[in-house]
């Protein structure tokens, strides 16, 4: 069995398997704005949820990817598809508090619940994050949500090189300023743009932006629609060619230079304060070999040909045993 949502990211092909289309399992099941918790069917478009939350001044702080193209909540969880603002409060794993899914034995399993703090039972909801539909089919998911920042502003700074931008990173990540996102966009081999997003109450924002600018030693402060556009571009991947494969590579800032030196010809972006590389490539097989050599793992998030998992493949006895319990007959994986 293969699962598909809106197929905005991975496009499972039947390939002799039963294809289970989740797109009609849609709608919000439970949302009490004063509770800051929302439960919805797995096929619900993330954009629909974001729009509903926005009516009440709330949001999913992990910046779900490709929402405008129709990404579903289930797909967002299964692919762990979070964006630049994940930097501030955490990713999909940090906001999912409940999940119901059907495992490979055909059992419906409810993990977690609808309260924000819960230490009872095994944390299946987190296990589902990044599972790529290999451990079961998500039926519904519950997220805690946060108050949406009243206003945003972004410092946009041109740097002569990636190294120059990277040199500013520790200053930003270690300072006590509350930063929502830190991304570096590499433009060709000789220039990079540092983007620092700050959100909060409108009253304190100008003063906070001045401090970020003086910390970085320059840059231009962008607000309003132009500012929103900068981050929409990252979330919706409008910065890459339609036919390119886009690969997510988790890493740490210290590992960026070695990787970057080998992918000079590609379009790329370092996100989440240097914890994620997004690489657009037309040669995923070559990137696979490179990542393996650098001991990095990757996931082809857009336009995958075959298995989206590339680079270093970790296999450990814990994962094997979990799969044996949830999907002993390999129905999903």
């Amino acid at each position: 069995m293969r699962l598909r949502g809106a197929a905005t990211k991975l496009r499972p092909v039947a390939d002799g398997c039963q294809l289970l289309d989740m797109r009609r399992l849609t709608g919000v099941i439970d949302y009490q704005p004063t509770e800051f918790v929302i439960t919805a069917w797995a096929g619900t478009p993330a954009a629909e949820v974001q729009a509903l939350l926005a009516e009440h001044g709330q949001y999913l702080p992990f910046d779900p990817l490709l929402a405008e193209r129709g990404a579903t909540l289930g797909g967002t969880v299964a692919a762990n598809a979070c964006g630049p603002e994940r930097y501030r409060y955490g990713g999909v794993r940090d906001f999912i508090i409940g999940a119901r899914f059907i495992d490979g034995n055909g059992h419906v399993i409810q993990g977690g619940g609808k309260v924000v703090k819960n230490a009872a039972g095994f944390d299946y909801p987190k296990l589902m994050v990044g599972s790529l539909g290999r451990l079961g089919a998500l039926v519904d998911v519950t997220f805690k949500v946060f108050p949406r920042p009243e206003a945003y502003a972004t410092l946009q700074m041109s740097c002569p090189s990636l190294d120059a931008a990277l040199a500013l990173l520790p200053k930003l990540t270690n300072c006590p300023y509350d930063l929502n996102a830190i991304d570096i966009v590499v433009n060709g081999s000789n220039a990079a743009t540092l983007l620092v997003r700050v959100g909060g109450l409108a009253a304190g924002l100008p003063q906070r932006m001045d401090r970020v600018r003086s910390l970085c030693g320059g840059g231009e402060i962008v607000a309003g629609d132009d500012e929103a556009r900068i981050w929409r571009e990252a979330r919706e991947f409008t910065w890459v060619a339609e036919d390119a494969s886009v690969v997510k590579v988790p890493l740490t800032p210290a590992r960026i230079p070695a990787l970057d030196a080998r992918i000079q010809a590609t379009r790329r972006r370092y996100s989440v304060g240097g914890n994620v590389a997004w690489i657009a490539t037309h040669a995923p097989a070559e990137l696979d070999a490179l990542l393996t050599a650098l001991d990095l793992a990757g996931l082809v998030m857009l336009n995958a040909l075959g298995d989206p998992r590339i680079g270093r493949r970790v296999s450990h006895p814990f994962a094997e045993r979990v799969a044996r319990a949830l999907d002993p007959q390999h129905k999903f994986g």
Partner: protein
Amino acid sequence: MSQAEFLSALRAVFPPGRLLTAPAALAAYESDGLTAFQARPLAVVIPETQAEVVAAVRACHRFGVPFVARGSGTSLSGGALPIKEGILIALNRLNRILKLDPQQRIAVVEAGVVNAEITKAAAPYGLLYAPDPSSQPVCTIGGNIAFNSGGAHCLKYGMTSNHVLGLKVVLPDGAIAELGGDSLESVDADYVGLFVGSEGLFGVVLEATVRLLPKPETYRTLLAAYRSLEAAGDAVSSVIASGLLPGALEIMDHLSIQAAEAAVKPGYPLDAAALLIVELEGERAQVEAEWARLREVIDASQPYLIKVARDDEERSKIWKGRKSAFSAVGRLSPDYIVQDGVVPRRRLGEALAEIEKLSAKWGIRVANVFHAGDGNLHPLIMFDGREPGALQRAEELASEIINLCIRLGGSITGEHGVGMEKRQYMPRQFSESDMDAMWALRKAIDPLELANRGKVFPDGEAPALRRVGSHPLEQAGVISRV
């Protein structure tokens, strides 16, 4: 294979001083923070290296002997209670901070490192480890991970699970697995997330990669006093509804105020029916803007008194009272049971009113100190263990409170874990098929049920003999049960 052969296998790994078998030496390990349960293990081993932990687990597997891993033994759910026919693996000496990288904002620590030591090591770089259970001066990171510990500051930054990026663990058969990594992101299923909070049933943590956060630039803390518990509960709802995201949002009721004041004199108003503590934290300009909004919300909630901490000293005084509340309740009652059920936040007022009714119905005093922002209750059910039947009555009341939390759509535990104490309540919160699925997972990972046997699932081994009274560390004021 005999017990003698098993012990001789342990002797090959551990010198006499680190392999305890004499009854007097074992006595110190009979209980954890939940002293109602006690059991004397076959032996205690005290490894100093990860290899020794692995060797102990492998010996257990070879001889089919169950084991319990333990840090400082502060579990409030009996999670580190030993097994009579098994061994205890005491991890306090596996306590090296292997790496602290301020630029990547991570620390790699061994399981026996004390929670507060991580923040201490990170402080020179302006960083901290966020999860702050009240036992943080003594509790270890391994135990925090096993039980997904919380604290007073979960509202904004989550529980232990949200701060662990990678784990190196030994599975119950001695196999080693490395889960997650050192990046904030991952492209694999979140096995770290599954392991955290599994209460020792999946194996033993050897080392953990945790994320560090910059220390907030500033804090603003206020104390608001109300004439009724309900009014304080309503104030919590309005603070949350206002779109503010405080670092902490806590309530103490009349009884716990009295107790805290008697114990550490934090300067709380003694005639208050309830106190609300709200703390904003973060960047100065943002906090100042939030502060103005918070003051409006709090003023509108009509407290009869508002106290604002003017400096760090006043702030720590407020927190000292809060964090000492549990041990302070010991002054009001020789014994008490603490529960940590969770209710949806909008139903806090309802839950508190119900608890008040139950308290009156049973004629048993209940003090309430809780993480209001998370809906995480901490009712302290007071009794005198010398009175025949008093413990049983207190437990029946506790059971009714747990049922209440489930009925309101919450959970039997927010941060203390199921352990020994709440295992019989699991089938009330989870359906039979959910319980079956969890059991199947446990069996797939540990077919012999060696790791922390008897915990989490009902119908484990028979409960140990019961006794009452607080933990020695608690009496000494070192730890408290929050």
